């Protein structure tokens, strides 16, 4: 397997990168939270509050500095009383920020799932592409001539690996986030936020699955990994830009837009110039369409189904010379 070494390298980079980068971010960007650090932070907040109180006292006891200020009472012209509690939570006075899951868990998970989607596309295209380009597939078909079975086995295995990768990413990141929370933060997640995170993981896993199958199908149709990459770049760079500018109403059906919508909890908004009158009778010059994550999932599923059927039909009939 020509791709085996390459895939091992990719996995190694991902694992080592994660094991190095994540702890490094934790240590350099976040503060450890302990009774001592909290006490120090509380002392810093109290000191700041005391500084404010001193300034206020000086202001109250001192003369007004302008004629305009002299017309006001001291209470009016001086800063208000600011107790330490009103300066903000004590974590804000730690030397570095605190890891707050509600703030970091979702965005980082989204980023990691995007990266995983790209990685599994590369893996799928490379695996199938190298089998076709090196003609190893001929050796395999001599052993197993049922092409549909070979197609399903390869695509299915890739789908399982992709789902496994997505689940692993979700599990690893949530575990990391839990460790971060224990070491550098406080758990502020509500039940709803947990549900939202799980849903995000599920949508991300769906995108990873679609991406892996797209890589494999691209390679099946173009007969090489390079062809699959070319098709992807062509679709994202040429087709989507072209349709976005020439037929902007069709944006909501573009794979790239739907992939983004699938990953976003509230979907994405696409807009195009068109004059219309709203219910209040106001003339508007832009139409905004919300592409929901469900819309994105359905469109991508339909698109992949069509592509899989085309690739399967082509694969069944193709002469391997």
């Amino acid at each position, binding site marked *: *397997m*020509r791709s*085996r*070494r390459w895939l091992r390298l990719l996995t190694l980079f991902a694992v080592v990168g994660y094991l190095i980068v994540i702890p490094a971010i934790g240590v350099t960007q976040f503060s450890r939270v302990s009774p001592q650090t909290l006490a120090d932070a509380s002392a810093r907040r109290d000191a700041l509050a005391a500084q404010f109180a001193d300034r206020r006292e000086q202001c109250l006891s001192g003369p007004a500095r302008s004629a305009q200020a002299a017309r006001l009472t001291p209470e009016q012209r001086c800063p208000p009383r600011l107790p330490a509690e009103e300066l903000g939570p004590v974590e804000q006075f730690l030397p570095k920020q605190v890891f707050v899951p509600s703030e970091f868990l979702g965005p980082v998970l989204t980023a990691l799932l995007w990266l995983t989607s790209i990685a599994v596309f590369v893996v799928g295209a490379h695996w199938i592409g190298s089998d076709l380009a*090196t*003609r*190893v597939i*001929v*050796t*395999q*078909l*001599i*052993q*197993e*001539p*049922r092409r549909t079975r070979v197609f399903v086995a390869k695509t299915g295995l890739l789908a399982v690996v992709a789902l496994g990768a997505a689940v692993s990413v979700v599990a690893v990141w949530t575990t990391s986030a839990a460790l971060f929370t224990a070491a550098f933060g406080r758990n502020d997640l509500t039940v709803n936020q947990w549900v939202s995170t799980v849903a995000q993981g599920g949508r991300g896993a769906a995108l990873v699955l679609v991406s892996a199958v797209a890589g494999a199908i691209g390679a099946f149709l173009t007969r090489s990994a390079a062809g699959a990459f070319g098709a992807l770049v062509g679709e994202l760079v040429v087709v989507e830009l072209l349709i976005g500018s020439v037929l902007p109403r069709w944006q909501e059906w573009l794979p790239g837009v739907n992939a983004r919508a699938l990953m976003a909890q509230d979907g994405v908004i696409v807009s195009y110039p068109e004059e219309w009158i709203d219910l209040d009778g106001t003339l508007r010059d832009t139409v905004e369409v919300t592409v929901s994550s469900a819309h994105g999932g359905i469109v991508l599923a339909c698109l992949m189904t069509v592509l899989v059927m085309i690739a399967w039909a082509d694969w069944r*009939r193709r*002469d*391997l*010379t």
Partner: protein
Amino acid sequence: MPDAVIEISGLRKSFRRRHRPRRVALDGLDLVVPRGGVHGFLGPNGSGKTTTIRVLLGLCRPDSGRIRIMGADVPRSLPAVISELGALVETPRFHPESSGRFNLGLLARAGDLPPTRVEEVLELVGLRDRAGDAFSGYSLGMKQRLGIAAALLGRPRLVILDEPGNGLDPEGLRDVRDLIRQLGSQGHTTVLLSSHLLPEVQSVCDRVSVLARGRCVASGTVAELLAAPGDADLQVRADRHDAARAVLEDAGWQVSAMTGSGEPPSWRVHAVADRAAVTSTLAERRIYVTELIPLQRDLESAYLELTAAHSEVADALAGQAPAEARGRGRGRAQGEEGERR
């Protein structure tokens, strides 16, 4: 034929070409490979040998025709007999970064074969010592051996080998030849051997089929092909040496000098149907034959005659007949062509 492992009738296969007419690779091929022994599959480049093998293995879809392997219709029922079929098609392809043993292990697992079988076939092809090396580091000969090992993995009843001698050194060629002979003599396995190494085919094969332009132009045992009636070459020595050649050529025979036949040199008269005609033709001109020896043809001559004759006929039928057209072989092939049509 009830005892045939491969039966092909009327097989046609053409390939699309961009901006050009379709290329016909198989043009109504009929072929029968009987059970047991080694069946040679000969033909010049582009005659359709590899395409036939690819169609047999389901790698290419035929346009029309009927194929049966061990009684199963191909490609529909190929999966039913694939476990009894082993094949090596051209240069073997395996995962380059994986070892020979790993590659065979994958195939063994796919075929539900025990891992011990991998070691057996590695031993059989003499690759056990290098089985742990990456396939990409193998020489062409070692790759061929691994391909043969893969073909033998499932103890097949039919082994199809497409140019197994490619890249092998003389020692490797001898080993593969011995292996093929051994397989064919066991009775369990039939070997279909496609090769351009004619001496190899002659020494190993029990039967031979010759392909030209997508058709089978001859089929039979090697002895039958070599002893095709009436077209043996003759070694002729006559008292008037140079005059003899001119007379024979005027009479329409193709004549060439035989090297190393002593002094005066003798002539080789090609494809002579009637030996008496040679002597009488020369006698009529008062040239007397001092020596007349029928020459045993080798497979190469027979093969060249058959394929060349067929090509000329095909050219002629296509309106591209060469200016010179002499020799019996041509007439015979034309007859065959006429019968087919």
